[in-house]
């Protein structure tokens, strides 16, 4: 086994963890806003968030690539502040992952928010608790299963994404070569044994994570 054998996995894990954590900070305010605001253009925002579900990853990746390059509008900004472009860089993968995994985080959260009884929120308000405190102490704790589901699906989806990552990240060792890309790479180089091992690890990992979640969720729902 070469010393760089585990690199793609470490990179994948790092990408998925960072993406999921950031998605909580982005997804919760978005889902909260979509649930409780009454503005008319809400459906536009909902459609934009759901886009990654229906767009081919290569389309998404292509536009990201344009936007992330040195001349792209996000890429130029990034280049100015951080001194490197986003395309073919780990940072670019994180931003891309956040966008394409956003619906996988937001949709379970939306269901969670909608299931919280209005009277619980109103009760907290009459107790003098502000909106933020009510969110933190009453709303979020009562939708734990949705929060777990959102996080796990977003995490798993980030681990498994291939098309977008290939378009914006390419295939740079220890920078953008995540596990799914590494498998493709090994197959292309006819290293079937390595491809097999990589695939099996991803397979087992995905199964283990889903199993854990369903076990945990089952208990959560039963209220133990």
């Amino acid at each position: 086994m070469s010393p760089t054998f585990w690199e793609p996995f470490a990179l994948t894990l790092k990408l998925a963890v960072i993406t999921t954590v950031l998605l909580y900070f982005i997804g919760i305010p978005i889902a909260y806003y979509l649930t409780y605001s009454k503005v008319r253009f809400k459906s536009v925002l909902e459609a934009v968030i759901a886009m990654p579900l229906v767009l081919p990853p290569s389309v998404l990746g292509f536009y990201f690539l344009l936007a992330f390059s040195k001349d792209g509008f996000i890429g130029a900004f990034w280049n100015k502040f951080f001194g490197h472009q986003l395309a073919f860089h780990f940072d670019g993968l994180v931003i891309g992952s956040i966008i394409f995994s956003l619906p996988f985080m937001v949709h379970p959260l939306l269901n969670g928010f909608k299931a919280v009884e209005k009277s619980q929120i109103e009760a907290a308000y009459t107790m003098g608790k502000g909106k933020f405190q009510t969110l933190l102490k009453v709303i979020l704790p009562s939708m734990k299963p949705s929060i777990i589901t959102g996080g796990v699906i977003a995490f798993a989806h980030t681990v498994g994404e291939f098309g977008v990552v290939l378009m914006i990240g390419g295939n740079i060792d220890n920078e953008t070569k995540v596990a799914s890309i590494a498998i493709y790479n090994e197959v292309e180089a006819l290293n079937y044994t390595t491809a097999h091992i990589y695939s099996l690890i991803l397979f087992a990992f995905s199964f283990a994570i889903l199993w854990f979640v369903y076990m945990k969720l089952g208990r959560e729902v039963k209220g133990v």
Partner: protein
Amino acid sequence: MIKVDVTKKFHGSSGEIDFRLIHEFKSGEFWTIFGESGIGKTTLLRMIAGLELPTSGVIEADGEVWFDSSKKINLPPQKRKVGFVFQSYALFENMSVLENLTFAQTKRDLPKAMQILEKMGIAELKSRIPSTLSGGQKQRIALARAIAQEPKVLLLDEPLSALDAIMRSKLQDELKKTHEDFALTTLMVSHDRSEVFKLSNYALWLKNGTIFKAGTPKELFLSKNSSSKFSFTGEILALEQRDIIVVATVGIGENIVEVVLDKMEAKELAVGSEVSVSSKAFNPIIKKS
């Protein structure tokens, strides 16, 4: 004292309602808001709590303006100091009973929360999670939690409607005692006449979007225009012709009785009509059932 002088347009069960209400609730009194469903009883409570906006008017509590449409004042529910007991209780499932109470307090005060639970005889429930409690217990906790807020006014939205008759009767007694023990000003929504009688000093009867009658329950429900000794209000459940007479089946509260009518009397009635069943010239016999 809570002063209410508001108007509100809303969709009730029988179409658009122009709600208009002017009333003062004095401190320490127990008022029930009585009337058909969809008439605006809950809406009135919600407007006082700040959970719903009146179309226009003024709401004041002890001289403090909570709402004034002409001055564009609208205090959020957070600043109104009301205790609201919801029909669904709205207990926080992620907190224990005791935590529900301390969360409701303006400043966390554990001994005081315990004191409330003890005074209401439910201290042994303090570490339980609400989902493990029975309906009656949940109702008590919801009440205790509202009291922990030290509210200027306690608002109860049909708090006993989800309970069976025996539990309801027991909790009515407890509710009355709690109101007196903690010297509260209480407004309770109810559509149950016996509940109004049992609990409240005063009652507001709402009809057609405004006050139909206000006063003591006696003044409201014992009509003075008949000299009957014995009178109940009920609903006709069935009308059945038998030879030359008609038998009306009337539901009065939890009971169902049959009343014999002649055809002329029956003509004016239909299934679903609200009727009063009264009798003059006999002495009712009361014995323990």
